């Protein structure tokens, strides 16, 4: 890391500045793709934009020192869930014809509600005084994460495995073709 910092400072850039610049670039790109997810009219393109948004969120996790979460995000969301979405799009919708866009009458009301939500949240966040910087050396490593998952959070871990099993069986039962 210090080598990278030296290389950057030799070009007149500070390491801190680069961190900030890349974060705001990634955050802006994530929000752009999220808007495309909501506004695009082709449902197949929406699935691709969703994958890009999820990769952007994984990059944001990296800025929060959550490397394991970033990898899990890419593996499970982009690898599994988006693939599932694409399969469902292929199996159901006529991609262009009926699946387009939004109900026209509802768009303005929906925009009003979501903009109001955003401004209320923004107001609350900017009013509150947050701690300026994280306490020193708070990054949680993978060993620590695994340890607390196996000791302190062992019961929720088992419950979630049961939930996954139930979802698996439920999906098979619901998706099975009915006999006529």
């Amino acid at each position: 890391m210090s080598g990278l910092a030296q290389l950057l400072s030799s070009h007149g850039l500070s390491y801190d500045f680069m961190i900030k610049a890349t974060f705001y670039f990634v955050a802006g790109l994530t929000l752009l793709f999220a808007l495309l997810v909501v506004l695009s009219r082709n449902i197949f393109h929406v699935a691709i934009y969703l994958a890009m948004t999820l990769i952007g969120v994984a990059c944001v996790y990296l800025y929060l020192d959550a490397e394991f979460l970033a990898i899990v995000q890419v593996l499970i969301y982009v690898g599994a869930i988006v693939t599932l979405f694409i399969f469902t799009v292929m199996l159901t919708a006529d991609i262009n014809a009926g699946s387009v866009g939004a109900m026209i009458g509802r768009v303005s009301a929906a925009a009003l509600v979501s903009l109001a939500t955003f401004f209320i949240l923004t107001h609350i966040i900017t009013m509150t005084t947050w701690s300026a910087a994280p306490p020193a050396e708070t990054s949680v490593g993978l060993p620590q994460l695994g340890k607390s998952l196996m000791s302190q959070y062992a019961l929720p871990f088992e419950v979630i495995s049961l939930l996954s099993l139930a979802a698996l069986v439920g999906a098979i039962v619901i998706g099975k073709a009915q006999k006529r």
Partner: protein
Amino acid sequence: MIPQSHFLLLGAALFSIGLFGVFTRRNAIGILMSIELILNAANINLITFSKFSGSPDGTGQIFALFVIAIAAASAVVGLCLVISIYRNSKTILINKINLMKW
């Protein structure tokens, strides 16, 4: 260092975009995708608070892990329902699905 409020603002913006999608999408699959956006916004908030509160055991990250697992389960069941509905009524546009309306 990037201040905490900027991560929270990113989460708020992502949540609002997902909310807009849930309200306006006519395709059931599109609604499920917008719900995934909302869950991701919640995850960003959880991990932000986990980092900036300085809890050493990573409770927020584990909570986010559980959210991801439950999101996967809900997506599987939701998409199965969509396929089942499509098989029965040949459409997944939610204003055409009125089987259980009066």
